[in-house]
């Protein structure tokens, strides 16, 4: 889960990492009053979950930023913060590195721009340290890194302390990424975090209630919120073939096959392992909200998931929802025969033996369904 800069800054501030003073506001009047209190000049920064806000006009002094779109996300809140006088800009980040399976601290004197860009064009300007998670970060290790950034001992001390604190935050908040870009020195020689980024592991939200409460529902897709509440994993895509699958890998493979056979998947949807029939109803409700969907494919490989549970869910969904698009169902594995009997009572297409067959059938039905609709419209 991502949190906003202002939320991350609050966490940093409490941990003792220096950040410039500021406040989030929603109206121009509020912004002006905060700006007057802080003293000019101020920075006004859009609070949206998008990288490269600065490049897209999301970080400046202006009257009308609220309501502007940055990469399709509407700005509802802005952070008004003191504009610091910058003497130097660096980068500091800690990520969960999959290759070393350790938290890796990255620093670079090339701050203020995308670290991916730095890694690509001038990799020699990045230093990395993979920390042994069972030993923790030693002060000397943090200091070694700080010496790469600064030559004055005064700044080295400040940066060492910031690195140590950031490392603690990484663990304390179950982060997968914490980042300060840029970490600056002011004209007075103070090292401060001008920006703050913090991504939290979704698996840890059960014990991070403070973070879970920070979730910005405005920033998320309605279907994705409904799916999460219903215990499903859902991602909206651009196509017209709705997919309901058990298991993430199979769900992705199903989407890929839809594309391969000439269709476009409308979504990724994993109903998970133990298939409560209610989950199937929720899944169909979410998919049907998408008006572009012209056909729906169920691909269930029963293991833990029992095919009859899913079949019962589909029947229940047909009772509860107005389903007017063709539905293809392929159920294989645990209790498959019982499931197919249950499905005989409703109008769905069954009988595809392989996954490939089921995908082809669905695409075909979506095509003729879209065609039929057009004809009716003409008539």
């Amino acid at each position: 889960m991502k949190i906003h800069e202002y939320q991350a800054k609050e966490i940093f501030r409490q941990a003792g990492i220096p950040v410039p003073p500021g406040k989030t506001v929603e109206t121009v009047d509020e912004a002006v009053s905060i700006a007057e209190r802080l003293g000019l000049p101020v920075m006004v920064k859009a609070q949206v979950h998008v990288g490269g806000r600065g490049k897209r006009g999301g970080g400046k002094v202006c009257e009308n930023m609220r309501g502007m779109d940055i990469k399709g996300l509407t700005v509802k809140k802005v952070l008004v913060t003191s504009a610091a006088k910058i003497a130097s800009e660096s980068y500091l980040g800690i990520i969960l590195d999959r290759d070393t399976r350790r938290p890796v601290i990255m620093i670079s004197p090339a701050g203020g721009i995308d670290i991916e860009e730095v890694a690509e064009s001038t990799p020699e300007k990045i230093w990395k340290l993979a920390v042994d998670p069972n030993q923790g970060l030693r002060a000397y290790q943090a200091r070694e890194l700080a010496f790469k950034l600064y030559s004055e001992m005064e700044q080295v001390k400040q940066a060492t302390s910031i690195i140590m604190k950031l490392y603690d935050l990484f663990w304390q908040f179950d982060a997968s990424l914490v980042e300060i870009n840029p970490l600056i020195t002011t004209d007075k020689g103070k090292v401060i975090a001008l920006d703050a980024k913090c991504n939290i592991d979704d698996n840890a939200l059960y014990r991070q209630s403070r973070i879970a409460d920070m979730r910005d529902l405005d920033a998320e897709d309605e279907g994705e919120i409904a799916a999460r509440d219903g215990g499903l994993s859902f991602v909206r895509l651009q196509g017209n073939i709705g997919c309901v699958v058990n298991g993430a890998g199979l769900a992705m493979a199903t989407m890929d096959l839809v594309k391969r056979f000439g269709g476009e998947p409308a979504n990724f949807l994993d109903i998970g392992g133990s298939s409560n029939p209610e989950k199937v109803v929720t899944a169909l409700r979410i998919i049907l909200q998408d008006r572009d969907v012209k056909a729906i494919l169920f691909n269930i490989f029963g293991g833990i998931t029992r095919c009859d549970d899913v079949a019962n869910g589909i029947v229940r969904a047909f009772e509860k929802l107005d389903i007017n698009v063709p539905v293809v169902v392929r159920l294989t594995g645990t209790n498959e025969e019982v499931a197919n009997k249950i499905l005989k009572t409703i109008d769905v297409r069954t009988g595809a033996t392989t996954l490939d067959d089921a995908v082809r059938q669905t695409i075909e039905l979506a095509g003729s369904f879209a065609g039929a609709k057009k004809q009716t419209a003409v008539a």
Partner: protein
Amino acid sequence: MSILIDKKTKLIVQGITGRDGSLHTSMMKEYGANVVAGVTPGKGGTTHEGTPVFDTVAEAMEKTKANTSVIYVPPAFAVDSIYEAADAGVKLIVCITEGIPANDMMKAAPYVKAKGARLLGPNCPGLISPGLCKVGIIPGQICKKGDIGVVSRSGTLTYEAIWALTSAGMGQSTCVGIGGDQVAGTGFIDCLEMFENDPGTKAVVLIGEIGGSDEQEAAKFVKKNMTKPVVGFISGRTAPPGKRMGHAGAIIAGNAGTAQAKLDAFAKAGIAVANSPTEFPALIKEALGSIKNGARKKTGIKKAATKKTTAKKTATKKTAKKAAKKATTKKTTTRKTAAKKTATKKAK
């Protein structure tokens, strides 16, 4: 033959009285797994469907001398179960539980390794050696005893692949689900190495997905170290970047995680790629066929290796290496340099 589990597996089920644990214990027993004990704190001294239940893994180990455990414990407690099993001396720990925080696993995975044990998972379907043993939740009825090894980051997609093989009459030696999380105990390379050394495995199916660069590393390993043919599959070609696709590890960040980067790596390593799980049988037939016909450079190795199937693993390897030397000197040199590189790396 098989890898990791067989008739000698003596299994402890951690969380045996829970809903999932209970259901799958009976299914594992039905398949023929030797479940010697269950563990649920507070239920020690009772039996669960004929299996003795203990309060702690240590006690269960003392009484049953088990060598393997499987964990069906809710995510908030599962990491503790992993530590408990490792400390009690379990050699193979299979964690089925999904939803364990990755940061917990960063600490737990090296801990288990340091104890000399192997962790499979978390967030995985476990493994099955058809006809011999099953640990986890892979449905037994879709498997068939044979000589194809399967290793995968996914659950149900693995079943799909197994089913495609079985339907085509191709049995499996062992099918291993390594799990979809960012930090897993066992990786592709561990399994590939075991399959390479298993005389009962002729070819390997490798199923990867978007996110991370494990598939690229696996491809490099295949090119450098495998004499047996490997066919592959990558799911998530249509996944948008930046979004988590169900599995915690399935997120495209930067170029390394994309399906294309992985497919390119497979192509470079000579791994034939299936566009659908249904294509596996044909690809395997082709790969094995070309070896028989001597179309591949590795022919020499393969033939030498098959002749000595009865000999010990190490002997097979030596013979293979000798054969490789004869077959192409150039290749052996490259391999030697590579081995040297690895050695220096290790020394560092």
